[in-house]
């Protein structure tokens, strides 16, 4: 059965390459033989199932962390003076105004990605919804510096869906597919920051890194109105990825002139262990165009298992930030992330964010900002086939309202994202689909000082 796990190909190409396709219908065959329509549909579905559509591996800036930082759209590396600074720039935590602070944030994220005109003129839509307790951090003075500990979820996907394509014009039948995807990226670890003097501070966060992915894809197809009768196909693919490593973040905070702060961080995820597993099962009655060595042989139950310990590489990331504290009630900030290219499928990339903070009173502050989350993949080449990446550039806007007491604060906020791009979800042909991405999240956060 033609199930091509794109994610796995990207990560463990040598090991998994062998099971990519055994049915590869040409358009020529497709035109002359109606049964091949079925095959093509299978391929379409299989390909769709395995694309990582939610902004995850194809983007680096997937989730905003911390209440103030989220309100400022992540433009926080030149501020970073609360526990979320442990993530954005650990050097900033020396400027915390109270000794001991804890902060915590919960976010509800939803997203929808629409691949246009995929199957018989119909769109393929994938959605994700997840409630994520995505940050906890605590800081306190220790020695001549400040010690911190934080937990940050930098990506979380929960797709649990089914979709049926009815009355596909060329095939005159329907496709049913079910798909479950749970992906979480956790960072947890200590930080320590020191002030050299009133103008320069340095900080290091040493996160333990963990990425866990678990995907289950199931599809069935029944094609009764054909010459051969009772064509059926069923397939299930389970894949899991478990990565462990370290994610050190070295930060500097500089005050070149009064009211201006500059932040700089260097970071890179280094994997120490990676484990990838795939199980594929299928049963089909399809008799034609089956290549040698195929996983899914006609009229039989087939199963294959693959495993790999290959470790993929993550980019070196440089972040530069600037903030201007115009007054006690007004502040503007900006940030730029520069990512190195990793291989042919990961281009060099620059993301940016800008934010504004305004205090209506000493009790209430509003924050707003905008940010980019561009695709780290190259643009899709025209007239090419089997391109493994999609390319969706996303921009987002955020807004939040905070209420302060003397020792605590609560923040409510929302973020919206919109993206457009292209993907090639049908293998073996040059057709490229337009893709539209919509995302939204609401978050509530609390912080306490002691």
């Amino acid at each position, binding site marked *: 059965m033609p199930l091509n796990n794109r994610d796995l190909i990207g990560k463990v190409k040598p090991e998994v390459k062998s099971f990519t396709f055994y049915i590869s219908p040409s358009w020529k065959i497709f035109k002359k033989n109606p049964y091949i329509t079925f095959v093509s549909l299978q391929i379409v579905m299989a390909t769709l199932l395995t694309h990582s559509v939610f902004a995850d591996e194809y983007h680096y800036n997937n989730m905003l962390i911390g209440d103030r930082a989220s309100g400022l759209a992540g433009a926080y590396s030149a*501020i970073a*003076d609360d526990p979320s600074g442990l993530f954005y720039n650990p050097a900033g935590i020396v*400027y915390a*105004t*109270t*000794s*001991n602070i*804890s*902060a*915590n944030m*919960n976010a509800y994220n939803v997203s929808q990605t629409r691949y246009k005109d995929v199957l018989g003129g119909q769109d393929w839509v994938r959605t994700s919804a997840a409630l994520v307790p995505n940050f906890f951090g*605590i800081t*306190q003075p220790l020695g001549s510096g400040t010690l911190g500990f934080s937990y940050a979820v930098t990506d979380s996907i929960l797709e649990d869906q089914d979709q049926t394509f009815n009355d596909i014009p060329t095939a005159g039948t329907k496709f049913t597919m079910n798909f479950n995807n749970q992906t979480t990226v956790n960072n947890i670890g200590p930080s320590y920051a020191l002030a*050299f*003097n*009133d*103008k*320069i501070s340095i900080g290091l966060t040493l996160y333990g890194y963990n990425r866990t992915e678990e995907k289950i894809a199931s599809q069935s197809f029944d094609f009764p109105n054909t010459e051969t009768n009772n064509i059926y196909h069923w397939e299930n693919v389970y894949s899991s990825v478990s990565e462990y490593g370290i994610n050190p973040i070295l930060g500097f905070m*500089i*005050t*070149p*002139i*009064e*009211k201006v*702060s500059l932040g700089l961080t260097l970071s890179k995820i280094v994997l120490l262990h990676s484990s990838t597993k795939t199980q594929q099962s299928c049963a089909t009655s399809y008799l034609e165009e089956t290549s040698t060595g195929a996983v899914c042989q006609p009229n039989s139950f087939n199963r294959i298992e693959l495993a790999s310990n290959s470790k993929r590489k993550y980019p070196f990331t440089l972040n530069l930030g600037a903030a201007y*504290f115009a007054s*006690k*009630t007004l*502040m503007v900030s900006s940030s730029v992330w520069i990512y190195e290219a990793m291989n042919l499928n990961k281009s060099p990339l620059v993301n940016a964010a800008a934010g504004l*903070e305004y*205090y209506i*009173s*000493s*009790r209430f*502050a509003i924050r707003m900002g905008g940010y980019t989350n561009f695709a780290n993949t190259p643009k899709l080449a025209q007239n090419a086939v089997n391109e493994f990446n999609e390319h969706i550039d996303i921009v987002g806007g955020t807004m939040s309202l*905070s*209420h*302060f*007491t*003397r*020792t*605590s*604060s*609560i923040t409510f906020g929302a973020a919206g994202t919109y993206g457009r791009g292209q993907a090639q979800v049908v293998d073996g042909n040059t057709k490229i689909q337009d893709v539209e991405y919509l995302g939204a999240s609401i978050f*509530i*956060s*609390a*912080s*306490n*000082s*002691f």
Partner: protein
Amino acid sequence: MIQRPALTTLVLTISLLFSSAIQADENFRSRAHHENSNTDISEDIDAEIRFGKTIAARILGQFPLYENEKLAHYINLVGKSLALYASRDEIDYHFAVLDADFINAYSAPGGYIFVTKGAIKAMRDESELAAVLAHEIAHITEKHIVKEFKIKGKEKSATSGISQILGSSQSSAQVLFTQAVDNAVNKLMKEGFKQNDEFESDKVALTLLAATGYDPKAMYRYLKRIQKLTIQEEKKSGQKPTHPPTSKRLKTLNRIAKNDGLNKLKLPKGKKRFAKYAIK
């Protein structure tokens, strides 16, 4: 290759950044909501008393009370008389004598003040006892520990309550409270207050002595007398001094007394009454 002017500029910039001689005003990072914590509320007093009570319990865990009811009653009378003229009438002061032979006195936030038996032995009159108590009272009125450890009460509001629940901050708060108590006890017993805090307490104590009707020169006399004794004790025990050098304190006391005209006051020393309770 970097040109010489560019190199010079780079070196100058780096030097400037690393120099602490020219300092930028870091207050620019402070935000409007920080003003909320600058005003005292009743919960702050409760937090201070709770904090001080815990510290007092730790001190009593190290040194038992000196069992002398009459003396305990006496120093409470002297101390509470001083407290009547102190700036914080919301504090209920408690005074006690510790059964320890070395010379020292301690004050915990919330009004808990301890004087060692050794310190009382070194006193010659009531005004000297009042001087020591006034100095400790001043640490409390000026909130030296409270400010250093940023002891604040929780505002009883819906926002505060919700944020505690959402932030699961109760257990964190308890841990941090215990840590702060540990640090404060360490500060009182081993490190001592900041030098500026000690000088401030001396200054406040002089005024308090005079306002209560005690001879303000008592502080000078007492410090002068114990100067050698404390040095000997510190050498013997190997403990670091918890106060600034006595010579420096004596100079400062002289200057303050002259500037404020306190050196010309002729106020009672209370020698006879003190003699009734004095520890032989």
